[in-house]
């Protein structure tokens, strides 16, 4: 067997790559959120387009179509989110005066302009979420293609919103070796794909420094409900348990972040949407005094001078 298996060129202090500095959350200077709240809450709604085409991406994103072409079953279950589920969630968000972000597949801007208008009326922050759920930023995708996906997504979204689109969440939180540089070149200043922290941190690229605002895979609705097959009641409990722990830590150690990612095609279903209502009630009403709820760019803005 080759000696390469026992050779360790990156075995040294810190990380085995140059994207960010090694540090432990508890050893950093405490972060202070507005009004000295212990916990910042970011809610994101991922509004996604899963093409019916039957193509197989390099890596299948969560929720990918699985059946032989034409997989009408999963195509329509996902499209349900764009026709029905999103409007249930928007109603709830308005009822609780929540300010979620929406991460949007660029292709939806071409397909469903009316959906874009409705999302623009909310005033919520928009994030680039890839062109569609088959355009996976993974493996040997060539730079020109990937760059074009990112540019096209940003242009498509900015046609419908007056607000700057500066944040990015890749389909399946997947990146190529080039994604961070391409995001910077296309005007994105923060990305949410690396789930390695619970606070924003500086992320190095060859185009300059960007911010990573870590999303949370382990509390993502698709992960908990469809991959782990946990009950809706358990999902609510997991979110409230997380909030309680982070509030307690935030009071003792400095500001913490709870990132909650929801999919209209999943929790917008009639038997699941009450779980979202329970979560909003638990976070924004029962724990409202301890929580600073804000859009992601606002959270990054509040943190950026404190995380050098």
């Amino acid at each position, binding site marked *: 067997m080759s000696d390469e298996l026992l050779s360790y060129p990156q075995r040294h202090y810190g990380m*085995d*790559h140059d994207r960010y500095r090694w540090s432990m*959350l508890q050893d950093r200077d405490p972060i202070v959120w507005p009004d000295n709240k212990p916990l910042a809450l970011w809610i994101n709604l991922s509004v996604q387009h899963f093409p019916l085409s039957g193509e197989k991406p390099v890596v299948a994103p969560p929720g990918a179509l699985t059946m032989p072409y034409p997989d009408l079953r999963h195509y329509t279950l996902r499209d349900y989110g764009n026709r029905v589920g999103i409007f249930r969630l928007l109603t709830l968000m308005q009822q609780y005066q929540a300010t979620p972000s929406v991460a949007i597949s660029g292709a939806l801007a071409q397909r469903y302009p009316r959906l874009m208008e409705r999302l623009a009326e909310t005033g919520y922050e928009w994030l680039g979420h890839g062109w569609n759920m088959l355009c996976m930023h993974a493996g040997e995708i060539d730079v020109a293609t990937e760059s074009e996906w990112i540019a096209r997504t940003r242009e498509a979204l900015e046609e419908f919103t007056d607000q700057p689109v500066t944040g990015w969440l890749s389909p399946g*939180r997947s990146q190529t070796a080039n994604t961070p540089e391409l995001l910077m070149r296309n005007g994105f200043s923060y990305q949410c794909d690396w789930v*390695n922290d619970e606070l924003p941190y500086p992320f190095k690229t060859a185009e300059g420094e960007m911010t990573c605002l870590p999303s949370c895979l382990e509390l993502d609705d698709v992960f908990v409900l469809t991959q*782990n*097959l946990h009950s809706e009641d*358990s999902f609510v409990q*997991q979110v409230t348990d997380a909030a309680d722990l982070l509030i307690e830590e935030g009071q003792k150690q400095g500001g913490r972040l709870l990132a909650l990612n929801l999919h209209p095609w999943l929790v917008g279903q009639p038997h699941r949407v009450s779980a979202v209502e329970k979560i909003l009630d638990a976070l924004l009403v029962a724990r409202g005094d301890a929580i600073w709820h804000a859009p992601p760019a606002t959270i990054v803005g509040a943190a950026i001078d404190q995380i050098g």
Partner: protein
Amino acid sequence: MSDVAQFSELSLYDYSPYDERPKLVWPNGARLAFWVAPNIEFYELDPPTNPHRKPWPHPYPPVPGYSIRDYGNRVGHQRQMALLDKYGVRGSISLSAALCEHHPEIIALCAERNWEFFSHGIYNTRYTYGLTEDQEREMIEDAMNTIERAVGQRPAGYLAPALSHSNHTIDLFAEAGGLYTCDLFHDDQPTWVNTRSDKPFVSIPYSLELNDTIAYVVQKREPRRYGESIRLAFDQLYAEGADSGTVMCIPTHNYQVSCPHRLRAFEEALEYITGHSDVWVTTGREIAEYVIAQGRQQLEGRPVEPSA
């Protein structure tokens, strides 16, 4: 079959029915020896390819898998450590030895607490598969020497990296000065293990069933249900421990158990277990040294028969 010499499964340890053994008496008459084994691991972003096992399912860079494991070191470690401090548990760390070089701050925090460090290979992305016997010896020695240099004590235990083994793994580890293995899941009491050097060497129960990664990733348990499983296991082993001492281990990973939506379930279990009298809260090494001092006859209760 491959050209690798097969070893007899019967030569590993001798058969001994659970209820036919001499009474195992723990220090101070405890019924149960309880230990917690945090796996503190380093997974490489770009390891060499081992033809027998792919380190990552995702093409380079494996952002989803890598980043959640990095979360364990950046965020999770100190969170679990604070909890173990609170309940008076010294961790027995299953350590990727290269972490001594990458993250010495973690090693220092654990050393301050007189935790035990045992070997879990160099990286959890480097497997035993395909190594020659000499290469495997070099890897085992490298890990032991690295840990010994960092903490001043040679490791006594071994959990092979990513549970990857060869026919020689246990023999080589015993010859390198090890006293116990965590790689065998056949019993709830320590077992004498046959090695070619005939050195005193035992298997200490390290429950794969209560391992948080198995519970959360393979069995997909809800967090509160996992906590309940730990308490049920304790009740059973504690009751049986009145007749003959038992061992209970909770193996953990900071990227699983320390997530904010899961830690409370683990805390409830720790509170429950440490709230009982007659529990020996200990480490893997202390259990191994204790049973080795008692001798093989005391563990097995009958003359040793030649191995098949």
